[in-house]
């Protein structure tokens, strides 16, 4: 079978800026995987020698509020305009967005402004009145995964590890899950478009792994905004995630690779919750299928200490994967604080005790 990475992808050849970035952090990523954002910045500045501004003054884009409809579109536009104003003040023109919903949101706003200039004028006026700030539209908006994608070969050259099972020499089998708002709203803003998004599969291939297709690859992780956020609605979320796990299980993946902070968390947590409900996992062990984001994976391959990049914050343990890849790690260093003092570990990790 042809891989997902067929060559006929020129249709969606998006422009990704090469340097001088401005980082827009993600609420969910910072909350659940702060180490992922940290290692992204570190890879960019220390390994790839690029410049990126990490500006403390930007706030949430309010995207979760927007998609739960408690933030009006006008407010959403004005908050995004404020981020652009901060960029302008720093002389930055290349936005790098950590969150997938923000990424979709920035493009939604920009497309609206293109088509309805009066909306842009309204945002300018709202921002000016509220903060006295002015903004310019950034020259380039990339998702952070686009940057890693752009430098995937360079990362491969620098990386001491590969997506290869060191015991068998076989490439690791990796399924990807692309966040809906990365490609589905504006397919031309996504590497590879919406149907055969290649941003993650190209990384998998460049790093020695084997991308594995599965029927529900394009299905939503199930977040559903109000369906997860309101406790009694969560069964929507878990049943959609279940659909994905059921679909990928027969392919026996070694890893789920994600580009969306929310998906990375949900695909990790729902495996645990489903195991608790159903008494089964979707892997051959009690652990579950490990889930990593592209920054976490790039960090691992580049030799960062798994516990410095925050992999102990995952419910599904990464150790089985680390062992397969031959990555050295210290088991006892996993639950230590910044001073190196051991902490009481979680009650249990993985999906089933």
């Amino acid at each position, binding site marked *: 079978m042809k891989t997902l990475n067929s060559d006929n992808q020129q249709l969606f050849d998006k422009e990704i800026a090469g340097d001088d970035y401005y980082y827009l952090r993600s609420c969910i990523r910072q909350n659940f995987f702060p180490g992922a954002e940290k290692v992204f910045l570190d890879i960019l500045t220390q390994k790839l020698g690029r410049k990126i501004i990490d500006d403390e003054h930007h706030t949430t884009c309010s995207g979760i509020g927007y998609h739960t409809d408690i933030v009006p579109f006008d407010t959403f536009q004005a908050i995004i305009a404020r981020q652009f104003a901060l960029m302008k003040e720093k002389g930055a023109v290349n936005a790098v967005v950590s969150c997938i919903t923000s990424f979709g949101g920035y493009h939604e706003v920009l497309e609206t402004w293109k088509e309805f200039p009066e909306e842009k004028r309204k945002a300018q006026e709202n921002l000016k009145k509220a903060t006295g700030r002015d903004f310019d539209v950034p020259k380039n908006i990339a998702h952070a995964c686009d940057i890693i994608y752009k430098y995937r070969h360079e990362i491969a050259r620098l990386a001491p590890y590969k997506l290869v099972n060191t015991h068998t020499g076989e490439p690791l089998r990796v399924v990807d899950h692309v966040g809906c708002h990365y490609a589905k709203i504006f397919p031309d803003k996504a590497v590879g478009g919406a149907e055969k998004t290649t941003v993650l599969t190209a990384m998998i291939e460049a790093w020695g792994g084997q991308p594995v297709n599965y029927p529900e690859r394009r*299905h939503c992780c199930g977040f559903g905004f109000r369906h997860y956020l309101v406790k*009694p609605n969560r069964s929507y979320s878990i049943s959609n995630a279940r659909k994905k796990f059921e679909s990928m299980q027969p392919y026996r993946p070694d890893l789920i690779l994600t580009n969306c902070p929310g998906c990375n968390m949900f695909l990790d947590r729902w495996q645990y919750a489903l195991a608790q409900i159903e008494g089964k996992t979707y892997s051959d062990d009690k652990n579950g299928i490990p889930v990593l984001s592209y920054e976490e994976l790039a960090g691992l391959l580049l030799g960062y200490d798994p516990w410095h990049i925050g992999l*102990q914050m995952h419910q599904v343990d990464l150790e089985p994967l680390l062992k397969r890849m031959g990555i050295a790690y210290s088991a006892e260093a996993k639950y230590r604080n910044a001073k190196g003092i051991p902490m009481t*570990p979680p009650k249990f990790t993985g999906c089933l005790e």
Partner: protein
Amino acid sequence: MKMVVQQLADDVRLKEGMNACMNCGICTAVCPAAEYFEYDPRSIVVAVQSGNEEKIQQLLTSDTIWMCGQCMSCKTRCPRSNCPGIIINVLRKVSQATGAFVQSRLGRQQYLIMKTIGANLLRYGYCIHPSAVDIQNHPEQGPVWEWVYSNREEVYERLGANLDREGPGAMRKIATNDLLELAVIFEQSGGTVLWQSIETHSKNKAIELGLVDSQGNPCMDLYTNYLLNEDPEF
């Protein structure tokens, strides 16, 4: 009061999201909500397309418009470049502006979202914050999150984050002035008006349900509890 049809049309997103529907069902086919609920985005688009005041009024008071999970899978596929997901945003906006949302169980939940996500937004400058992902309300987050939550100062510090502290970094404290700007933007651009509408109609609903204190004022703790335990009717 403006007709709801006009209120929908006033939102620029209706022009973006609504071209013309030919009833092909491609949206419903991939809709995660359609798989889970008795939900059919196609028929919502058709109802909005009809411009029928009564039908649209019915939608605004129904659970239906609150079933969409906003994944926007529909947008990718529509052969007429409609976006049912964004049409839903417009319906929800008008439902909240007119107070119709309190007439449905799922609509009433907007009060809960405003009090959680909304509150986080203005309090922290983030949609979510570690301290707001409490263990009681998030059993699905599992024992590792429980460990993170209970030791968050130490865990975030180890990962080079800057939890609740000044300066840059992950989960940093958003400076007071930046939070203030966010609040003024809310005030300036209609966020506050929306929240007042949600608040007022929710309070009226609480009174209607008899969830009041001894003075007859709405008791919003009782109302919150009511919303969290309301039985689905479908």
